[in-house]
């Protein structure tokens, strides 16, 4: 009895003790906490009142490696396109014009656009640049009213392409404008009007796909170089020089060799047989190198081939180009039939297959038929005369359908 009483007494004391402890702990922790917060009332707030009440302008407090907007100094850009390839989200767009190096400069850029609205400022483009032309500036204030103004056009005028820079051999420092100067001038007033879209007539008139003046005729140039290579086959240094002319000449190092000399030397010495390592040269360089390699192996320069029509795009493939892999080249122009339209020469079933082929094949239903099948059947079997309905196929399909069914060009829209 006494034990339980003592126990309950201890319990009661335990409960009361816990009660008192609660109050004491609360008071103590409140004291500590409140002293901390009151102490902050009497300290200087850490806020920097940007932009007008700063003691030092923000631009002077940004560290040197800050990744702000991108800037390209076109004076030292070698048009190697290494930045374009390194970008994971394809924010940089460079359009290259190739020339033969004699009358017309070998490499010119007619477009160098960077969309800083889409850029994620990762810095992967800055690293592979051989001359340091592209850099991150310390600019970050780029509010604009029109979204299109966020695309920085470092080649301002398409009609005045910028010549690529050829760095002197062995140079490792390249003079550059003040960092940020170019970008600041490109980000104009925040409410600058956006660039006008080209109108429909201008777009139709655009010389898309036609060779530009002074453009490179890859096949002819490849054969010229092959012929010269054949002549100097034994003289390795001269052979190396001929081969180097087939490359882009940017010394970017993407091929795995330190510069264009290294790669062309390896081919000349017979140590390297691949023709596709020149990334800036692209398909053109690959084609020319293939021609040279085939010539060196067989000892005969390949002929131009029958029906050579230089109607491809600037630097485009030729239909009869010899290529070791035997891959047939892509033809960008449509066969222009000369006889009566296919609609009159083929049977209905075969015509239906040809028409189905000409559609986009997306089964979207935009043509108001259930699918491409339905539209094709409508045209062939049910006498549908409206050939303009295929929206995904667009102009391509329209042209094809008109030629198949009527043998004429489609009227202007």
């Amino acid at each position: 009895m006494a034990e339980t009483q003592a126990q309950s007494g201890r319990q009661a004391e335990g409960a009361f003790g816990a009660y008192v402890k609660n109050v004491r702990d609360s008071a103590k922790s409140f004291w500590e906490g409140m002293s901390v917060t009151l102490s902050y009332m009497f300290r200087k707030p850490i806020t920097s009142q940007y932009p007008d009440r700063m003691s030092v302008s923000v631009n002077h407090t940004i560290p040197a490696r800050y990744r702000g907007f991108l800037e390209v100094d076109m004076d030292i850009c070698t048009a190697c396109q290494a930045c374009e390839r390194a970008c994971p989200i394809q924010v940089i767009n460079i359009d290259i014009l190739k020339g033969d190096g004699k009358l017309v400069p070998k490499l010119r850029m007619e477009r160098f656009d960077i969309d800083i609205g889409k850029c994620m400022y990762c810095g992967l483009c800055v690293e592979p640049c051989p001359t340091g032309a592209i850099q991150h500036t310390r600019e970050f204030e780029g509010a604009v009213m029109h979204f299109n103004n966020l695309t920085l056009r470092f080649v301002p005028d398409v009609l005045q392409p910028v010549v690529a820079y050829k760095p002197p051999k062995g140079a490792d420092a390249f003079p550059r404008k003040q960092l940020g100067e170019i970008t600041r001038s490109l980000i104009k007033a925040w409410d600058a009007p956006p660039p006008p879209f080209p109108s429909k007539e201008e777009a139709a008139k655009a010389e898309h796909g036609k060779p530009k003046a002074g453009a490179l005729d890859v096949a002819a140039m490849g054969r010229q170089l092959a012929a010269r290579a054949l002549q100097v086959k034994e003289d390795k240094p001269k052979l190396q020089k001929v081969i180097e002319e087939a490359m882009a000449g940017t010394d970017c190092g993407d091929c795995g060799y330190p510069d264009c000399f290294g790669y062309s030397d390896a081919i000349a010495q017979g140590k390297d047989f691949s023709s596709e390592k020149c990334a800036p040269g692209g398909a053109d360089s690959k084609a020319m190198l293939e021609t040279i390699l085939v010539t060196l192996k067989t000892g005969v320069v390949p002929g131009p081939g029958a029906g050579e029509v230089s109607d491809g795009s600037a630097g485009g493939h030729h239909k009869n180009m010899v290529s070791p892999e035997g891959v047939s080249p892509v033809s960008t122009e449509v066969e222009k039939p000369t006889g009566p339209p296919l609609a009159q020469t083929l049977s209905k079933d075969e015509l239906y297959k040809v028409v189905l082929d000409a559609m986009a094949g997306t089964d979207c239903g935009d043509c108001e038929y259930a699918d491409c099948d339905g539209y094709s059947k409508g045209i062939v079997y049910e006498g549908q005369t409206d050939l303009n309905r295929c929206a995904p196929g667009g102009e391509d399909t329209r042209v094809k359908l008109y030629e198949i069914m009527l043998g004429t060009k489609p009227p202007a829209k």
Partner: protein
Amino acid sequence: MQGFLDNLIRNAGHDPATWPYTQFVYLAGMAVAALIVINFAAIASGIFSWAERRVAARIQSRVGPNRVGPAGFLQWIADAVKLLLKEDLVPDEADQFLFRIAPYFMMVGFCCVFVTLPFSHSLIVADMNIGVFYIIAVTALIVVGIIMSGWSSNSKWSLFGAIRSAAQIISYEIPGGMALMIPVMLAGTMSTQGIIRAQGGLPWQWFLFDNPAAFAAFFIYFTSALAEGNRTPFDLPEAESELVSGYNTEYSGMRFSYFFLVEWGNLWVMSALAVTMFLGGWQIPGLSPERFDALTGGTAVVAEIGSLLIFALKTLFFVFVVMWLRWTLPRIRIDQMMSMCWKYLVPASFAGVLFVAVWMLIVNAAPWLGLAMRFTLTAVGALTIAMFALRVLKNIRDTGDKFDFTSNW
């Protein structure tokens, strides 16, 4: 106020008891007084919203609004104008009538308190002899408004907030009321002016330092007032991180601003009541109430203004303390809140009342004991404040900062 109006009528040459238009004068007087008091409440709560934002910012090492007007002082006007111009949205599913009148219940409950709240020696709307009782009764209207708003919003979140809030407020009325009974017992009257007159201007003449139970009662009352005003650590009904905004989730525009007007205005009310009951109100140190009444002419006006300033300063200090508590303490959960009320505060307040009753008998028999206790408690209070100030300065030094109140304002 009735005396004041009667004097006016007599000066105009009529006898208040027989003049037929006495009631109209009274009515006009009441309307004017109501207008002044409600305007004061509204403007005070607007200014407190600005003050809270500045205090919160400086505690959090930020700056707070400082662009609209000098030191951002006009920010609350900008906010009020914005809220006025907002679309008056009443949800389709809500109970249309109740939704619309709920804020007004809260406003009424809140504004009625100002009737017996003194501002200075003779500035009080009506010095009723049941002043404290009236205040405690009238603040219960706020609960009605909250429940109405939560229910009529037809939203689960609002309902949660309203029910939590109702439970909280009516629970904390009890310890708050009991704690307020202690100054009533010490003063012998429920009239607010009477309670102030029973104290003095100097700290050891306040009821706060009268005896340990009164000291504890102050804290019990302060805690209960925080709970009744839905202030942290008791702001679960409006817990932003849980219920979006509790019972005022569905409100927008001016209706929303009524809720916040009441909340911030309540800061004044709870602080003013604490000052009235425990801190000697408007009493000027060294000037007893009788001598105050006997003053005339210029000195009377000066003394009047002095008493107003003293009252205002003491009240503003406690308003600051409430804000400071909000930005320091976390939130208590609803069940912990209930257990704290019923297990800690209610027994403590009852024990306090008993203690004060016994103490008054003891002091009656041995007055020197009362005086000794007052001086001891005042010394303890002063020592605590000094230690706290030193701790605050040590905090600043420990982290390597400097005491700096004026820069980056």
